[in-house]
Structures are given as structure tokens and as C-alpha cells.
């Protein structure tokens, strides 16, 4: 069956090709079009884009998006950080100065969970981490936010979660973009070379 069909379909293909064969001009136009598209792609090559979605608001989880964003900006990448849910606290002027680390459920803490659950342990864990960060010469969260804004990183606050958390648009650092939704975030992700969910 299949061997019978093959010559027939090849014939059809041949006749189709002759009837619909594009003219030399049409081919030339198509080549010009493709060359133009290629030039655009090549000229676009130097500009990398990154979109980070920051969803966590604990002290330790505020660092990775900010460090990666400010470093990418040093590479001249176009960087967007979309802050949603607890990630909003990172760019919330008051809350960002008060981010906490959780002692409970953190297997790297030198105390068992039962002890970690005692009131005040989160504060202690956070202080310990702050001290180590200072000794290590690692910048503070505030420094990294200032640096990110200064170097052109776009820090975005998700509008839906601003309302969900009962925050006000004025609560965020100057330079933070508000009024952004999931559709805009997706658009940035689609255009990006690097997309991260933190």
C-alpha cells in the first residue's frame, strides 16, 4: 500500500511545485526580509534580559534576587525583579529593615526545632546572620536595593498582592514600579534570556 502511494504523492508534489513556484522577484524579496530579520537579531544579541520573580520575604531569601539583579546590571543586562506575595516585603521601606530569619524548620540551625520555636529565637537567628553578613563584608539589604535602583534594575511590585497584603503604593522605596500584574510579568519573562523564581 505504502509503496503504491509513494510515486503518486511525489508526482503531486512535483506538479504542485511547478504551479506554485515563486518568481525570482518573490524569492529576492523573501531573502531581503530574512536578511533584515537576521540583522535585527544579531544587533539585539548583546543585550541580555533577566526576569526574577521574588516571592519570599524572609531575611535570607531577600539576598539572592538582589545580588543576582545588581550583578546582572553590572553586565549591562536589562533586569526586572517582579515582587509578589512576601517578596513585596523586600522593597517595602519599613518591612525591609525588619526582615526575619526563621529558626524553625531550618536544618542548618544549631538548635532542635523544639528549641527554635521558643519566642525570640527568630530574632536571635536573624541577629546571628546579620552579624556574619557584616563580618563577611556582604552588603545590607538596603544597600543592595539602593544599588539596584541606581544601576537601572526595575523593581516591580505586584498590584494584586499589594492590595492583598493591605499595603499602600507609597510604602515602597522610591523608584519601585507599582501597578504591575501577572500578564506584564509574563511578558517580561517571555522576552528574557534568564527567568528565575525565588
Amino acid at each position: 500500500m505504502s509503496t503504491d502511494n509513494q510515486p503518486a504523492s511525489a508526482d503531486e508534489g512535483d506538479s504542485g511545485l511547478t504551479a506554485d513556484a515563486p518568481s525570482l522577484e518573490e524569492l529576492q524579496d523573501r531573502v531581503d526580509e530574512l536578511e533584515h530579520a537576521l540583522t535585527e537579531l544579531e544587533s539585539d544579541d548583546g543585550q541580555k534580559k533577566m526576569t526574577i520573580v521574588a516571592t519570599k520575604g524572609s531575611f535570607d531569601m531577600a539576598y539572592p534576587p538582589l545580588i543576582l539583579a545588581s550583578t546582572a546590571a553590572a553586565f549591562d543586562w536589562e533586569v526586572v525583579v517582579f515582587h509578589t506575595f512576601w517578596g513585596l516585603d523586600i522593597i517595602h521601606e519599613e518591612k525591609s529593615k525588619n526582615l526575619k530569619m526563621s529558626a524553625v524548620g531550618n536544618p542548618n540551625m544549631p538548635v532542635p526545632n523544639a528549641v527554635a520555636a521558643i519566642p525570640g529565637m527568630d530574632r536571635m537567628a536573624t541577629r546571628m546572620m546579620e552579624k556574619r553578613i557584616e563580618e563577611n563584608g556582604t552588603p545590607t539589604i538596603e544597600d543592595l536595593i539602593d544599588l539596584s535602583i541606581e544601576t537601572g534594575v526595575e523593581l516591580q511590585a505586584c498590584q494584586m498582592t499589594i492590595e492583598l497584603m493591605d499595603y499602600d503604593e507609597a510604602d515602597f522605596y522610591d523608584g519601585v514600579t507599582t501597578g504591575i500584574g501577572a500578564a506584564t510579568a509574563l511578558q517580561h519573562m517571555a522576552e528574557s534570556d534568564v527567568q528565575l523564581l525565588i
Partner: protein
Amino acid sequence: MSSQHNPTETLDVKGQSCPMPIVKTKQAIDGLEAGDVLEVVATDSGSMSDIQGWADGTGGVELLDQTEDGDLYIHYVKKTD
């Protein structure tokens, strides 16, 4: 410190850790003219691979040399355009 690369400016990032050596290097390079050489003095051992990666991935700069001197990691970056 080696002056064979004839640095135009020296950036001191001793005691600072990731991402500051890169971020400060980028800012210092932005303030220089084409042909200038920036000397970066760091104590962060990660700066050896970071500065190299940054120079490879960034247009308009060339990494001339990287040396270790005790606890110090010294980088020479040229602004090419």
C-alpha cells in the same frame, strides 16, 4: 603593587564580598576613558572567577591580568571603548 600595566586608577574593594567587587568595578570602569586601565584590589577570592566572567560577558572591557599577593587578589581591567 605591580605597575607593569600602568593603571590609570586603583579601586580598593578590600573586605567587600560578592557582589560588590563586580558592581564597584563596573561603576569605576564607567567613569574611565577608552584606553584607561583600572586596578582592582580585592580580598574576596571569588573575585578571581567573577571578574574574569564579568570581563568575558561585558562589551568594551578587557581583562589584562590577575595576580595573587598574599591575601590580596589584584585585577587589571582595560576599558577598550
